[in-house]
């Protein structure tokens, strides 16, 4: 029971590491910075494991396990409606999944970073930020109320900003950091309004209290949207910003300016999935707001497809992965939106493995190529960096949804729910399946361009070398997880039990408006073997294989075909290459008018003319008056006396006039 009572240790360890490295790291040798950074995260992971072990033996009646440490904020009268927030932490099945994913992937990426950042300046600063990020991310998933979650939510945004702009002497990096911060802030405004509305509606921000209140309310319907829908939609707008969905996704591709391990940890595995976690956590509210559910599913589905189309033509290896991340996050929202929260969280977990791995291998490729990120200048790397090649291939197979790998199980579950779940829609399913085919194509395109064919760089200048063991060992561990991380759900295919969904079931069914049927995947009346075969040759798998073959045909068999196709479909190609001109649209529609308003109206008119005019005018009046009046102080006693005399006479006359008026 030790860890369950002292859950704050899990938060204290990384922030301690961040503080030590941040305050003293500059004077410490690299080895000391390493041991503080890795040590704190390793201990965090150990503490999480111990917590999970203790959680395992907890009776079901005590779940969710909530521990309140101190009163954080109190306002208003001391009645039931008072604003009273404790700093409280919570563990339930959903938290356990998130904690394990975040701390383990985080640990691997910390280890990888030692190798990747070895020759970079600001070493201690990097690890201090990374530890700080771990602290905020763990706060986000462990908070027992929306306020504590919001602290983590904003904190990870801050760390994201700091780490994207890590190379602060590069203007593009600092710009990207600002863009990420401001864009997510737009969503956060709605998120904050959603939190306040939730408090106003439920009288509390603690999850269990909120959900009990929500369960008592009449669920909204498609025809009648009420407060629950408003809360759900507002919170989801926050998730759109944080998890880079349409239309606020623009910051994520730019965020690739940061160091690659940061992209892996923050912009693939953990932070960007915070929105999915939030939707899953607030499932009792979402389940009672069908319009919000539909919005989540539609935004997720469209984003999954839309981002995949952009990824088709990108040539920067990290940009491809960035759009892929947006697309996969869309999948997660699609899963949550059609009511399959467990599938969404499952995809979140497997995605953390294979997308984290993809970014790390991409980092390894960039490292090997001496900083080159353009895939058109790579090629033929397969033999030179074999570990990177094999691990990246595994991750690609996983993300493409090839049967047997982790991504297959989670993606299949989402698509299954989109087809036959409680909020199913053929259109959403079609979007998801189409995106699956595109995913397979652009990922194998990446593999073929990078590792196959003839080298397209000067082999005498670029010394291609495999990364050190500090970098390859995390790759291998993640490759293992990308392969086998999905097998817990495998029995589902044969009509059996999906252990992952079964584990998460208490979180999603305790406050569900109607009984959830989550294990109805198998077609009845078929033998298990036939069912497995049916799943293995399902439409998503066929499309994934077609994607693979098309990529092979384009980039191995006929290397000239892509150019010819691009010429034939010139308009479409240019549109995709320029990412549908969304950045330009935002620049023209929002940034420029705002800048014009700020410059011409707010600055040059309101500030310089009105405000400065008023301030300077007051000073001028005072100065002019003083200049005139000071002539009175001549030093001449007689003139003073004259003024006194005139004043006395004037005052007396006034007094007499007043008396005359008063007695009249």
């Amino acid at each position, binding site marked *: 029971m030790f860890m369950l009572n002292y859950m704050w240790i899990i938060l204290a360890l990384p922030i301690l590491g961040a503080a030590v490295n941040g305050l003293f790291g500059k004077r410490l040798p690299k080895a000391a910075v390493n041991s503080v950074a890795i040590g704190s995260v390793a201990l965090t992971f150990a503490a999480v494991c111990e917590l999970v072990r203790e959680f395992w033996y907890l009776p079901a009646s005590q779940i969710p396990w909530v521990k309140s440490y101190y009163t954080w904020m109190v306002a208003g009268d001391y009645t039931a409606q008072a604003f009273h927030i404790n700093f409280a932490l919570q563990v339930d099945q959903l938290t356990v999944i998130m904690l394990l994913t975040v701390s383990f992937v985080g640990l691997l990426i910390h280890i990888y970073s030692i190798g990747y950042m070895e020759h970079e300046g600001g070493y201690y600063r990097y690890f201090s930020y990374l530890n700080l990020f771990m602290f905020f991310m763990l706060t986000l998933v462990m908070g027992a109320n929306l306020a504590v979650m919001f602290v983590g939510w904003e904190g990870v945004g801050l760390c994201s900003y700091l780490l994207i702009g890590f190379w602060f002497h590069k203007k593009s990096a600092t710009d990207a950091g600002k863009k990420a911060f401001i864009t997510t802030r737009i969503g956060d405004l709605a998120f904050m309004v959603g939190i306040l509305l939730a408090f106003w509606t439920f009288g509390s921000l603690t999850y269990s209290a909120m959900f009990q209140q929500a369960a008592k309310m009449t669920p909204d319907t498609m025809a009648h949207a009420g407060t629950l829908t408003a809360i759900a939609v507002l919170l989801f707008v926050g998730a759109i910003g944080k998890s880079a969905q349409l239309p606020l996704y623009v910051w994520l591709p730019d965020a690739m300016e940061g160091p690659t391990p940061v992209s892996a940890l923050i912009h693939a595995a953990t932070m960007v999935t915070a929105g999915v976690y939030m939707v899953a956590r607030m499932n009792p509210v979402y389940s009672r707001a069908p319009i919000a559910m539909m919005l989540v599913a539609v935004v997720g589905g469209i984003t999954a497809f839309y981002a995949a189309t952009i990824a088709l033509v990108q040539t920067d290896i990290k940009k491809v992965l960035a759009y892929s991340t947006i697309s996969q996050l869309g999948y997660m929202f699609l899963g949550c939106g059609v009511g399959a929260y467990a599938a969404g969280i499952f995809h979140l977990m497997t995605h953390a493995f294979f997308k984290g791995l993809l970014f790390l291998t991409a980092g390894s490729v960039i490292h090997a190529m001496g900083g080159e990120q353009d895939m058109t200048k790579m090629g033929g790397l397969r033999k030179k960096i074999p570990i990177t090649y094999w691990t990246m291939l595994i991750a690609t197979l996983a993300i493409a949804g090839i049967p047997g790998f982790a991504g297959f199980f989670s993606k299949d579950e989402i698509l299954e729910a989109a087809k036959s779940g409680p909020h199913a829609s053929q259109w959403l399913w079609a979007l998801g399946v189409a995106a699956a085919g595109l995913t397979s194509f652009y990922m194998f395109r990446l593999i073929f361009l990078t590792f196959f064919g003839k080298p397209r760089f000067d082999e005498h200048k670029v010394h291609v070398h495999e990364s050190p063991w500090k970098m390859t060992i995390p790759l291998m561990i993640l490759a293992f997880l990308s392969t086998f991380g999905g097998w817990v759900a495998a029995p589902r295919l044969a009509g059996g039990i999906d252990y992952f969904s079964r584990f998460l079931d208490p979180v999603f069914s305790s406050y569900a408006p109607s009984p959830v049927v989550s294990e109805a995947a198998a077609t009845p009346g078929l033998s298990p073997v036939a069912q497995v075969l049916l799943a293995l040759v399902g439409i998503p798998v066929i499309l994934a294989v077609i994607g693979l073959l098309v990529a092979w045909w384009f980039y191995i068999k006929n290397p000239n075909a892509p150019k010819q196709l691009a010429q034939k479909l010139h308009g479409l190609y240019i549109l995709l290459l320029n990412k549908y001109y969304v950045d330009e649209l935002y620049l023209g529609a929002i940034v420029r008018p705002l800048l014009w308003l700020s410059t011409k109206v707010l600055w040059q008119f309101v500030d310089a003319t009105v405000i400065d005019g008023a301030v300077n005018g007051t000073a001028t009046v005072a100065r002019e008056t003083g200049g005139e009046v000071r002539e009175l102080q001549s030093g001449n*006693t007689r003139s003073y006396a004259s003024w006194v005399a005139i004043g006395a006479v004037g005052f007396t006359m006034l007094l007499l006039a007043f008396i005359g008026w008063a007695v009249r």
Partner: protein
Amino acid sequence: MSVPISYYLVLSGILFGLGVVAFVFKRNVITVFMSIELMLNAVNLAFVAFARAHQQLDGLVFVFFVIVVAAAEAAVGLAIVMMMAQNGQSLNVERAHSLGEGGPTYLPGGSAAESREALKS
């Protein structure tokens, strides 16, 4: 029969007015000083007149205070006159405006800056 109070007050007003006019127009500091005494005594006359008219002692008490203050003022004022005569070699109040804009200029002739130089040496 007694003299009506208005007579006293008119006389007091005339004396006070004379004092004011003298104060404003005379240049010799001793004359100015005398005009102050004239104004004080004009007020004293009014006090006494009122005390008598109302058959009360308050006005008389005030008169004593004014006399005391006038005596103290004469002591301080004459000392200032002595110092003016010593330092500025002039009893002209027009020259004594060192507290005004432009600083001490009461030394005969010259600008403010020259006077300051002269004072330093």
